[in-house]
């Protein structure tokens, strides 16, 4: 008998399915039922660029301690896809469990000696009950959820409550799902020793008031709260669900009650060039506008981004990053568009980037980006990624201050113009590099100007004179420094003990990093952490680097793009910055970060601080 992994509320279940078989909703049901028992879960879709037929996986990390990063390794594999059987079986941790459809006998060579095999004749059970092909396919998924609920001790009442919410008013569907669930439960109860799986879900109270939501959905809601009225987009994985969620939110929240008319306009453009063009046109004309896209879309938008930056037109671009370069890995995650966004377009251009860590910050930063873009009159990027955008993540509930008003920045009104206030479209009147603008149609005789991508003077008059050009470029630099102050500031997570080592990270690395810091600490490796939340970097980022001998920079790309930007922005010894890079398209794990940093600390011949001090 192989050993049997035993764990309560701390294990990883992975479902291996075929794309398009309806498994996604069953797997999500599984994850949600554990969440309802008060135990945090962190699920991840691992899917191909395909609609039907190719392999797809759903990984659920059950984590009492609330470690929401990907752990790595699989304790229980639900192997529903013959195509990937060998790979799936191989992935199971020694002592782990293989759950499979045992309808057809399988040769012993298909299994492993060091894992525990749980066979349930899912197809046989299904076919004995259902005749319709589609029903067979869908209910087989629910039957395995039922079987697993018995094996893992998941409260079936929670699953039934979830059915009740999902099929409210559709009693027939509710009953048939409960029936399928019980088919799986009853079979396992009758045929399998309840003790054969030593992984257990036990009721807890660690979820609190947190919500379970995808980053794309959250960012879309942030756009609604942030007052976006124009959304122009072009479908591209993994960002498409963001614009679609914006549409769904607007349908509920943005129609005039009396007339039924829409207080928003959404256009699916012909390409990304047009979508950013529409955003710029709308923002120039005084509406709040945004687009959502991914890396290849950014490449196409680059010319327009330069125009918006130089002509000083607000624009919000949510970049749900995927694996690059080129078409790259459309359904895998990376943080590899930092450089292409930060310095997008020809000439001396620099742009504001925000780095949300989870759906909560996707919501906050998208709403903030709409304010920032108006205040700074420039494009602002929200740099999320597939890992945050397309996976349900447990996060703090959304909050909104009742008194918050849309901050439209410096807009000169007809009254101010009428009163004789001096208007120079590119005139720095406040010393922050930000000029006043007027919306088209404001005043019959005052405040009109020409917006262009060519150089101009303070009064928007075309000019190619050197000093005029330099003055404008210097003012834009000053404006960039203003952005440094008003964009979200970095957050520090100090080690409990003093240390000469630091780590800088950002975005979706956050949950894995938090866990890695715990592991490092447990191993006696003390590291201070700083999470960068925006570019241009605050001065405190440089201060943090100066306070440490070595600073690890953890990123999900090959070239250490954040590290390059830090070196570019500050004057410091580049050898101080040690890259920690993970970029195979899977989300970075705490195991990887902790192991890599521990190894590198070892190479630095670290003497623990306590010893050095004594």
């Amino acid at each position: 008998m192989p050993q049997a992994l035993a764990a309560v509320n701390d294990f990883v279940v992975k479902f291996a399915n075929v794309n398009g078989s309806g498994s996604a909703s069953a797997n999500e049901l599984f994850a949600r039922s554990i969440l309802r028992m008060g135990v945090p879960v962190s699920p991840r879709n691992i899917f191909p660029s395909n609609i039907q037929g190719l392999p797809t996986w759903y990984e659920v990390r059950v984590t009492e301690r609330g470690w929401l990063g990907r752990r790595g390794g699989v304790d229980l594999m639900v192997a529903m896809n013959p195509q990937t059987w060998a790979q799936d079986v191989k992935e199971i941790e020694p002592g782990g469990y293989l759950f499979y459809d045992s309808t057809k006998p399988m040769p012993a060579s298909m299994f492993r000696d060091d894992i525990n095999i749980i066979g349930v004749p899912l197809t046989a059970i299904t076919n004995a009950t259902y005749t319709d092909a589609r029903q067979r396919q869908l209910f087989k998924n629910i039957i395995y959820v039922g079987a697993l609920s018995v094996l893992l001790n998941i409260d079936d009442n929670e699953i039934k409550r979830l059915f009740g919410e999902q099929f409210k008013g559709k009693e027939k569907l509710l009953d048939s799902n409960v029936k399928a669930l019980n088919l799986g439960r009853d079979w396992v109860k009758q045929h399998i020793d309840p003790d054969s799986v030593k992984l257990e879900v036990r009721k807890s109270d660690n979820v609190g008031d947190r919500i379970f939501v995808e980053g794309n959905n959250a960012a879309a809601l942030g756009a609604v709260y942030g007052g976006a009225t124009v959304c122009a987009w072009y479908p591209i994985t993994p960002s498409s669900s963001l614009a679609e969620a914006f549409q769904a939110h607007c349908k509920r929240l943005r129609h005039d009650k009396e007339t039924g008319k829409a207080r928003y306009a959404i256009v699916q453009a012909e390409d990304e060039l047009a979508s950013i063009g529409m955003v710029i046109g709308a923002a120039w004309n005084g509406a709040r506008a945004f687009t959502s896209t991914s890396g290849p879309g950014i490449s196409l938008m680059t010319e327009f981004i330069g125009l918006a930056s130089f002509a000083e037109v607000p624009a919000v671009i949510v970049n749900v990053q995927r694996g690059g370069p080129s078409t790259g890995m459309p359904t895998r995650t990376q943080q590899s568009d930092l450089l292409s966004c930060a310095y997008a377009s020809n000439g001396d251009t620099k742009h504001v980037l925000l780095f949300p860590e989870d759906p909560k910050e996707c919501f906050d930063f998208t709403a903030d980006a709409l304010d920032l873009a108006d205040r700074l009159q420039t494009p602002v990027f929200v740099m999320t990624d597939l890992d945050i955008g397309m996976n349900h993540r447990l996060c703090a509930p959304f909050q909104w201050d009742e008194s918050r008003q849309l901050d439209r920045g410096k807009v000169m009104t007809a009254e101010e113009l009428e009163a004789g206030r001096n208007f120079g479209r590119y005139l720095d009147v406040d010393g922050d590099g930000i000029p006043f603008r007027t919306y088209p149609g404001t005043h019959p005789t005052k405040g009109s100007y020409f917006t262009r991508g060519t150089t101009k003077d303070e009064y928007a008059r075309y000019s190619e004179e050197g000093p005029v050009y330099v003055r404008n470029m210097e003012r834009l630099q000053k404006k960039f420094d203003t952005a440094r102050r008003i964009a979200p500031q970095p957050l520090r997570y100090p080690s409990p003990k003093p240390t000469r080592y630091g780590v800088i990270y950002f975005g979706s690395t956050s949950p894995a990093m938090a866990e890695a810091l715990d592991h490092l600490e447990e191993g006696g490796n003390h590291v201070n952490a700083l999470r960068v939340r925006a570019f241009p970097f605050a001065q405190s980022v440089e201060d943090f680097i100066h306070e440490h001998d070595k600073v690890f920079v953890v990123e999900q790309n090959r070239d250490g793009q954040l590290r390059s930007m830090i070196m570019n922005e500050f004057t410091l010894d580049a050898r101080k910055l040690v890259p920690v890079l993970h970029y195979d398209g899977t989300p970075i794990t705490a195991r990887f970060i902790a192991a890599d940093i521990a190894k590198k600390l070892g190479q630095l011949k670290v003497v623990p601080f306590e010893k050095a001090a004594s």
Partner: protein
Amino acid sequence: MTYITKPKLHHPSLVKNKAGYTRRDYEGAVSTLCAGCGHDSISAAIIQACYELDILPHQVAKLSGIGCSSKAPTYFVGASHGFNTVHGRMPSVMTGANLANRDLIYMGVSGDGDSASIGLGQFAHIMRRGVNMTYIVMNNGVYGLTKGQFSATADKGSISKKGVANSDESIDLVSLAILMGASFVGRSFSGDKHQLVPLIKAAMAHGGAAFLDVISPCVAFNNHAGSTKSYEYVREHNEALNRLDFIEGREEITTQYDPGTVTTVQQHDGSLLRLRKLGEDYDPSDKIAAMKRVQEGQAAGEVVTGLLYVDPTPRDLHHHLNTVAQPLNTLGTADLCPGPAALDRINASLR
């Protein structure tokens, strides 16, 4: 030298329109285009049209791409906002601008390189979306700013100034606009003010996507023998289908027409388009016939001009999107932000 401003002093005898502006109030900066450029005649026609329509100058938004033609918005209606966007992408910027404020009058000015070469895709899509605008292409078949290369509207066989024959098929923007769903399509000639001004007025009054292809000879690079976009060639081959009189709904109709010589089309805003027949019977509300006639003319080497197609009851993008009557750019926090109570309900649904 667009920074040279014209003297603001107006002669007291200048006649003011119903909005209280003289014709000169619709002018812009001094043109920097070549003397004799067709584009300046079109700018003058736009100025005349705006003056005659009693438009408030600041209620116009002028957008363009890149090129000689795209400089033109600087030279008319100086009191309005203008946007020189990027090459070939004016349509998307105009679409977004229109979404933000449906109350302004949108005038897009582009060239044949800007709309038919680099910008053909965006040209097609703005027409099919039905953006409420007047889109004018100042069409000279040549790149002026880069000194004389063919554009995509240059006719096959047309000879360049350097003596090279164009071997590529030309793109006919009029046919394309009709095909893509523009609801007002006309063609004219920069040298024919009497035809052009009423066409611009009618296009501006039209409540949907209005497109005007205006042949506008380039005196510097495309006005020689062998060119099919020269003044001489266009004058000789101009095949005008009709003469348009634009009559605003509130105006008293004073012009007398002989019976059987006029077709009247009433546009959605109440304005009347009176089309005087010139020879053949032509019904501009028949889309299929319009495409056939334009293609026939093309095959015969004619420059078919006039009001070619009009749908008198167009639907625009705002209609399709069911947007509120109030411009989106005037909506404030209370209109747009659902507030914390709604957010609490959303939070509850995500647990």
